[in-house]
């Protein structure tokens, strides 16, 4: 696969004059759209619930970054393993976890994926291949390498996919993991969602290179890949190629997806550090706007599109109701599962 660098203007032009190649197919496109819409709607509901104090603590929303999650979510197979950060709601939903499991965990209720034991930053659903969400920046990159090593050692053909933000590229574990994966040629895909901000600071102010992930790939003998992370089709194709490469024994890939988050770093952040006009510019490149247009170009009728949207809204309502009706986890869970025997005992 050739490396491609997409600037905003180029992307718009390319889409407008692109031939109607249908390597992806309508079924898959509808799936990509459905996932993005459901992720958007669920995250918006999370936002509202936080304002109503039904979600406590903190929450890191992916509004605006749905295309990366959806593109990889559809490209990954059932046995593939994904690892993401505390901004992981989208990636968890994209692998098929139920909305009430996700919202329930944010609301710290018994119906949550982990019954409220982990919270928003640690969403896990092993059944769907979501092998944890990690709150210590960079920690999960070596962990993903370990999962990939296991696949390589046992001759299993699943791929481990690791999602992280631009800020992660400056922490030690990033560099250790990339080198490790490259040297051992592990079946792991590293996906950097560059949303231009490391927490409250523009990434450019704290990084020695322009593209924090892609411009470091060469240090690890890897291909330089930067893509438009707001176009689900481009993400999907890139994902497919990287997954196939890994599955075939071709080793790791590092993919930088350019995107933007609509809200602050976390709910506590009103994001006043953004220059005026920046948000509005990126809103024009809202992934869901792009994809609605894409579906039109491939002759998907409005009825089908709106049915997906309506179904998503209904799902969110049903999930919210289920969560509100769910009790908090029983008190016994406080001391459960510290150790494999289910208990907490450190003495006899």
């Amino acid at each position: 696969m050739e490396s491609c660098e997409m600037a905003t203007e180029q992307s718009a032009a390319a889409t407008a004059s692109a031939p109607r190649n249908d390597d992806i197919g309508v079924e898959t496109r509808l799936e990509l759209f459905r996932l993005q819409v459901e992720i958007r709607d669920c995250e918006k509901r999370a936002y509202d619930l936080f304002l109503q104090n039904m979600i406590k603590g903190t929450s890191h929303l992916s509004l605006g970054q749905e295309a990366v999650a959806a593109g990889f979510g559809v490209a990954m197979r059932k046995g593939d393993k994904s690892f993401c950060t505390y901004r992981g709601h989208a990636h968890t939903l994209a692998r098929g976890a139920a909305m009430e499991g996700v919202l329930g965990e944010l609301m710290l209720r018994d119906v949550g994926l982990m019954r409220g034991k982990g919270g928003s930053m640690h969403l896990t659903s092993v059944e769907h291949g979501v092998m944890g969400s990690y709150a210590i920046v960079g920690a999960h990159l070596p962990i993903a390498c370990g999962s990939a090593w296991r696949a390589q050692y046992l001759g299993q053909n699943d791929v481990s996919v690791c999602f992280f933000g631009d800020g992660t590229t400056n922490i030690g574990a990033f560099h250790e993991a990339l080198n490790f994966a490259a040297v051992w040629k592990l079946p792991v895909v590293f996906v950097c969602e560059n949303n231009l901000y490391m927490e409250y600071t523009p990434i450019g102010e704290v990084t020695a290179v322009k593209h924090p992930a892609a411009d470091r790939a060469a240090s690890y003998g890897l291909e330089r890949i930067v893509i438009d992370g707001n176009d689900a089709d481009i993400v999907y194709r890139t994902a497919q190629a990287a997954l196939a490469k890994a599955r075939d024994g071709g080793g790791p890939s590092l993919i930088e997806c350019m995107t933007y988050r609509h809200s602050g770093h976390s709910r506590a952040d009103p994001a006043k550090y953004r220059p005026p006009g920046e948000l509005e510019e990126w809103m024009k490149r809202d992934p869901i706007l792009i994809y609605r247009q894409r579906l039109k170009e491939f002759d998907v009728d409005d009825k089908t599109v709106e049915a997906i949207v309506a179904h998503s809204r209904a799902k969110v309502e049903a999930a919210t109701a289920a969560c509100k009706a769910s009790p908090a986890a029983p008190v016994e869970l406080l001391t459960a599962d510290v150790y494999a025997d289910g208990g907490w005992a450190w003495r006899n």
Partner: protein
Amino acid sequence: MVDAMSNAVIMPQLGETVAEGKILNWFKSVGDEIKEGDNLFEVETDKVTLEVQAIVAGRLDEIRVGVGVVAKVGEVVAVVGAGAAETPKSARPAMQTLVRSAFEEVATPLGRFGAAKAPNGVRATPLARRLIAQNGLDIAGLAAEVRRQGGERIDEKVVRAALAAPAPPAPTAEGEVVMLNAVRLRTGERLAENWRTIPHVFQAIEIDFTILDRVRRQRREAFRQAQGFSLTYLPFVARAACLAIEAFPLINARLADKSLVLSREIHLGIAVDLAHNGLVVPVVRNVGDLTLVGLAKAMNRQIGRARAAKLTPDDLSGGTYSISNNGAFGTAFTAPIVNAPQVAVLSTDAIRLKPAVVSTSQGDFIAPRMLGMVGQSFDHRAFDGAYSAAFLSRLKQILEQHDWGEDLGQAS
């Protein structure tokens, strides 16, 4: 996990009215191979202690209820697997944990033993304090001895030495006669004086000893084996009196010229009949600091010394309250004479099976119960009948409702 290949070991039915049992001991560890009929664990109910055997063979895979924990009848206490199968010999888990709460990860012992410092300032180690309380020793005496020998504290060595001192000779059927006449003469004068000067009032209350008696009988043999003398009702009554006095301090006072001097400590006089040849009232000191077993030992020791005529003037003075025990002859109640300058004396008489009315939710029934009268003679100058009655009521409550089994569990 109990699956098709494993067997659940449950808390068996141990008696018609028994709902639960406490595991005292596991004879096997997780990982052990069990044969049918092997002793698996020891369980205690409020009626009985017994061993439970395995009814299936296999490998003890899991212990769910640990030592010291209560489980309901029918509850799964362990799991025995089908036996060492193809799985490799896995590391035997060592954690047969006591199922404690995560907020009580360390089991702080509740309750306390006696003072950390003797009246003369000499300190006792925690172990020494426990041994003093459990063996009915007197910290003041030990502290004086330590001072005399130039030591710094009362430790285990000091206490063990005191315990190793030769035991008083067993009471003989007949005592020395010569002293006794003097005793009778001396006490007679005092008794007359007390009767003349103290306005006596006597009150009695009927106590249901049924539950206490059950406990006493259960533990009787083990107590005799361990201590070398019989566990009678008297230590229970004495202990209950100490507990009751905590709420009624005027009982444990001395009448001075125009005042009532409350005593911080309880020094208990025990009326000992010298084989119908006189009465002495040796004192057991600091009984408030003693456990039930310690009190029983101390009382037994003093009674033994009294009967062997080994009492010293120190033994006969300093009492703050007294007990007169008359139960041996089956009397209903006795009104003893107050032992000035004390202001009250407790009397116990026969405790026997009698018909009593027992009220249940199904109605009132007649049932045989162990009943006995406990009375108190008191000096009406010190307090009134209502106060004494309230004390007796509290005493009754303690004798009937206190967890005596637990007190006997604290044997040294």
